[in-house]
């Protein structure tokens, strides 16, 4: 699978360079204006009772770049994700996608407009085959209307085309051999791949990945990273929530840091990790070393990792409560 990451290396550079160039002159401050934003959010507030989970004043996501959304425990990353994709409703705020207002649009319409997401706890549809999972991702299917469903002649040719496309995507994600297996029989990492491949069936403009690396076997990490980079090379915008700092540093063009529901820092990975505000958010403000300082990095990483693990557990708990 490493081949996928490196084979298109010549082409890979171009989009990455374009994204880096476009973001080079953007000021490293929270709420910075981007040259070509695809998502613009303003004053998005979500409260759970007395707790303000999200309060984002202004944030823009650059088109065609990979943007990471990071932050410590309870920073509101997943909640913000849910708000943007219509899975939760904000108390206040506006946001637009590709110039059209998207506030309070139901989740399925958000997806139809070209902004698809994956979930932190993978949602492979266990008792459907891998291929059926993929076909479910295709948009504009004639056979999905009840009135036309009984007449196979209406949808058969479209189904055939979708199947071809699904097999091609499965091939790219090395899942083609599993096409007729139940999705429930896949490993955790394969399910992540399937979920990503399924999201691509609809040719989205923006792909939003909620912790794509959580629970993935390290052997598969490189392959997953390669696929995420690949999305950018195909012209898609990627926004992802992640705790793995190595991954954030490796693949993101831009990093947005949230803490206590607010955006506290923005910038390219290296500058963000040296930002005192970020270190304070993560480590409580009593550290005078930067996150990118090599000597202290290993030790800090351990600390952060421990925190992150606690955070994943807490996030899952929180998710369970709010999404049920």
């Amino acid at each position, binding site marked *: 699978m490493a081949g996928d990451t490196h084979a298109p290396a010549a082409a890979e550079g171009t989009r990455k360079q374009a994204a880096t160039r476009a973001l080079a002159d953007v000021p490293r401050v929270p709420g910075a204006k981007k040259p070509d934003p695809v998502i613009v959010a303003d004053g998005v507030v979500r409260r759970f009772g007395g707790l303000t989970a999200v309060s984002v004043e202004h944030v823009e996501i650059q088109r065609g770049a990979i943007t990471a959304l990071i932050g410590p425990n309870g920073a509101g990353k997943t909640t913000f994700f849910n708000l943007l*994709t219509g*899975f939760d409703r904000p108390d206040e705020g506006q946001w637009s996608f590709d110039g059209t207002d998207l506030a309070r649009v*139901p*989740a*399925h*319409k958000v*997806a*139809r407009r070209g902004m*698809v*997401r*994956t*979930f932190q*706890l*993978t*949602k*492979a*549809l*266990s*008792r*459907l085959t891998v291929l*059926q*999972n993929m*076909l*479910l*991702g295709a*948009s504009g*299917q*004639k*056979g*999905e*209307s*009840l009135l*036309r*469903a*009984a007449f*196979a002649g209406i*949808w058969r040719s479209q*189904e055939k085309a979708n199947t071809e496309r699904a097999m091609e995507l499965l091939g790219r994600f090395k899942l083609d051999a599993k096409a007729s297996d*139940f999705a*429930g*029989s896949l490993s955790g990492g394969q399910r992540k791949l399937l*979920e990503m491949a*399924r*999201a691509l*069936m*609809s040719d989205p403009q923006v792909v939003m990945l909620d912790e794509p690396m959580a629970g993935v076997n390290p052997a598969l990490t490189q392959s997953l990273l390669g696929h995420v980079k690949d999305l950018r090379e195909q012209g898609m915008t990627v926004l992802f929530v992640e705790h793995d700092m190595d991954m954030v540093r490796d693949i993101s063009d831009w990093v947005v840091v949230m803490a206590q529901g607010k955006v506290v820092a923005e910038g390219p990975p290296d500058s963000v990790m040296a930002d005192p505000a970020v270190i304070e958010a993560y480590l409580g403000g009593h550290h005078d070393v930067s996150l990118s300082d090599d000597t202290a990095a290993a030790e800090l990483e351990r600390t952060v990792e421990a925190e992150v693990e606690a955070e994943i557990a807490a996030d899952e708990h929180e998710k369970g409560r709010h*999404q*049920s």
Partner: protein
Amino acid sequence: MDIGSILSNALAAAIGLDTIIYALAALGLNIQFGYAGLLNFGQAAFVAIGSYGIASMVTIAGLPFGVGILVGLLASVLFALLLGIPTLRLRADYLAIATIAASEVVRLLARSNSLGAYTGGSNGLTGFADGFYDLNPFPAGTYGFGPFENNARTTWILLVGWVLVALVALATWAIMRSPWGRVLKGIREDEDAVRALGKNVYAYKMQALVLGGLVGTLAGFVFSLGRAAVQPDNYATAFTFFTYTVLLLGGAARVLGPVVGAAIFWVVLSLTDGLLRGAIAAGWVPDGLMTTTQVGQVRFMLVGLALMLLMIYRPQGIFGDRRELALDGR
């Protein structure tokens, strides 16, 4: 003990009126529960709506029985919308609570004194089936052979019933192999995932609820016409639970599961009934253990036992795929 007549009765039960009624009710429930994962615990109400649609329109209003069919179908759609609009956006359990309550409301309304003028109260209604039997193309006489021998009237209702079962099974097969059916199965697995792929989950669940309810209403038509009487307590929650039993016996999310399940359910009931009565009559069962009046209850206990054994040794039902069931974990 006359083994011959016991077996003959059991065979007759396999294609009998009860089998048709439960097969249709379970075919409807299969669309809702088997494919879409909707916990409808009020299938009895949809059946009652079909039964009373015909009975009230013909006996009380004096309208032709075709009007009764139309009213039944229409009322069934309205009832499904009424149940679905407030509950289908919520978690699955809310539909279960609402449907079981609504189903009892329907039954209690039908047997109430205040509505007695329209429903016949606790006595129910009779004298509405003539319009249907007037259409009987079979001249008087007996048809069929051996255990399947019936008079013209029974032959007519059985024929209509089985044609309905066949048509509904065919329609289920046709829509469930389509992309529409795939979305429904996806919703059963995880509705958020399906929503994230751009499908209007609420609309699909509503369609499944309405469709399954309509099929339940067809069961109601066969029920009332076959018995030529409606009686409110036939539509108690036990009807719904037997329908679930039938569905699980045959295997949920299989086109023919409900049909085979219904046949097995009624054959087993007939067999145990015949054998127990025969054994008591032959003096093999001491009076202190069981009397003939208790046979009716004991056979349901045996069905319960059979269902438990089935769930332990073949949880996917007769037709189910065991691999599929083993994948419940995420």
